[in-house]
């Protein structure tokens, strides 16, 4: 059973006037089959946590450890992390001109699975996954994220989640910018992957809305670069009513 363990993680970014610390000692354990919601106000460091786990070069880990089944994730390159089973659904997926979605998905699946998927079953697999997410088949021939609407980009991220079947899925504000219909489609995709019981999910969000569709086992409030409070789903209800005010007072990093 895959377990992601984050211990006392400190992360900085380069800013004018020297490095600025954003994560200030994050402790979190995510096990396969569990869903953790990380909620917090803007600037609390939620996205930094997501990108640091994926290995974005902009972020410098200055302390702490991250392991996946005991393996040192921080020592791995970005692609090694992905192949080890860490998946980041990005808030702002990047356009990659000249690379078609179908070519991209196949190259990625080949890398993650360690061998090229058999063409016949692969085509079917992709087609069905796209249908489930209401993605038009013509997207396969379009360039990755190029000219996609916000909702299309998010569905494309979840399509990859479904095809790549990671051990740990980090969803960085996947709900932001989605209307209710798109949110439902995207959430259904996430739930299909969760129902397999094979994935540990880290759901990063600003709003409680998505939690109506994706039920978390644990809810953590993120503030000022660390987890300020942890609880069950009822904590989300409290946030829904009271907002983040209690956590922001005097403690915001920005």
């Amino acid at each position, binding site marked *: 059973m895959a377990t992601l363990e984050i211990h006392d993680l400190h992360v900085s970014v380069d800013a004018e006037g020297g490095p600025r610390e954003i994560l200030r000692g994050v402790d979190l354990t995510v096990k396969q089959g569990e869903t953790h919601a990380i909620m917090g106000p803007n600037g609390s460091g939620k996205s930094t946590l997501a990108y640091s786990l*994926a290995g974005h070069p902009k972020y410098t880990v200055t302390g702490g450890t991250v392991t996946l089944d005991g393996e040192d994730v921080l020592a791995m390159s970005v*692609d090694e992390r992905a192949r080890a089973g860490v*998946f980041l659904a990005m808030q702002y997926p990047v356009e990659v001109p*000249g690379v*078609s979605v179908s070519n991209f998905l196949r190259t*990625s699946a080949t890398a*993650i699975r360690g061998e090229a998927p058999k063409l016949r079953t692969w085509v079917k697999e992709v087609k069905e996954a796209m249908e489930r997410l209401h993605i038009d088949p013509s997207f396969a021939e379009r360039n990755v994220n*190029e*000219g996609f609407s916000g909702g299309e980009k998010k569905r494309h991220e979840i399509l990859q989640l479904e095809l790549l079947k990671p051990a740990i899925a980090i969803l960085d504000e996947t709900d932001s910018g989605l209307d209710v219909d798109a949110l439902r489609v995207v959430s259904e995709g996430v739930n299909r992957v969760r129902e397999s019981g094979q994935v540990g999910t880290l759901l990063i969000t600003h709003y409680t809305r998505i939690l109506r569709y994706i039920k978390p086992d644990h809810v953590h409030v993120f503030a000022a670069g660390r987890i300020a409070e942890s609880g069950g789903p009822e904590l989300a209800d409290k946030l829904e009513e009271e907002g983040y005010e209690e956590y922001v007072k005097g403690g915001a990093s920005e």
Partner: protein
Amino acid sequence: MAETIPAGSTTDGVIQVGQPTDARVSAPASYDVADFPVPHGREEDWRFTPLERLRGLHDGTAVADGGVKVEVSAPEGVTVETVGRDDARLGRAGKPVDRVAAQAYSSFEKASVVSVPKETVLTEPVRIAVHGEGGTAFGHQVIELGAFAEAVVVIDHTGDATLAANVEYLIGDGAKLTVVSVQDWDDTAVHAGQHTASVGRDATFKSVVVTFGGDLVRLHPRVVYGAPGGEAELYGLYFTDNGQHQEHRLFIDHDTPHCRSNVAYKGALQGAEAHAVWIGDVLIRAAAEGTDTYELNRNLVLTDGARVDSVPNLEIETGEIVGAGHASATGRFEDEQLFYLMARGIPADEARRLVVRGFFAELVQQIGLPELEERLIDKIEAELEASVG
């Protein structure tokens, strides 16, 4: 087409109306090298070129020593001749436009003339192998198609050489010529020259210029029209590596009504001191009513330190045209793109390969020569392999 622009800067060219095109060259076209001053490097038509790497082709100090071999193999029905300087069939497509081209024209001893008789449709390409054996040479070639003839000509440049050579394409009425010129030189070679096509009535000229090798390559692909109805498609593909200077200076002279031209050049650059130059001049003269022209240049910069100069110029002297446009954009393979692909398990070198293949794929398909397509893709892979390292 616009959706394939890589993210990054866009350089729009200037549109000049009514200014004579030769305002940008240092001397009027001429067959005689003596009519051109030795360039000093600040002239508009020389300012991008590192003169010191031309090995004297530009200042008269280069001396021919015969170290370049030219072999022509042609299918039946084609006449291949080696002729002297005074042959009347030489020099008809147009005069040399710079000192190096004029030097080549003033210095070659023998020229080859390849003739495809009228109404002859070749099913096999004419192949011209230019192989450098470390020497310096001046060359001249004429490829002539009679009326309604059809031919594909492949010119391969390989090995090491210091070469100044001009090629003339004379395309008869209703004829169709496709020329592929591949500059697959060793990284030590220097190659400069002018490729001028004279397109007859209702004739079609398709040019594919592929530059991978060389220390310095500087080519002038040019098109003139002899009569209405001519059509020219000019495609180019370059992969400029560490230390290479690859320069393509195109000129399309629309001086005849109802002709068309379409230009698409794409280049990838990788490594420090890689320098690509693309100049796309299109002149629509007052007489050229009904002209339809478009030119495009795209560059993909893969690593820091590479430099692109892309200058499209469109000069329009009549409003009675079908269309005229140009586009130039230089994009960078960005860290965020690399991160995105790597975050999906794709290793860095493979991510780069994916992007470069995608960048060239559309152009390679557009060229429409299946045999060449495969060769180009293989070559692009090899270039990436060698330079990603």
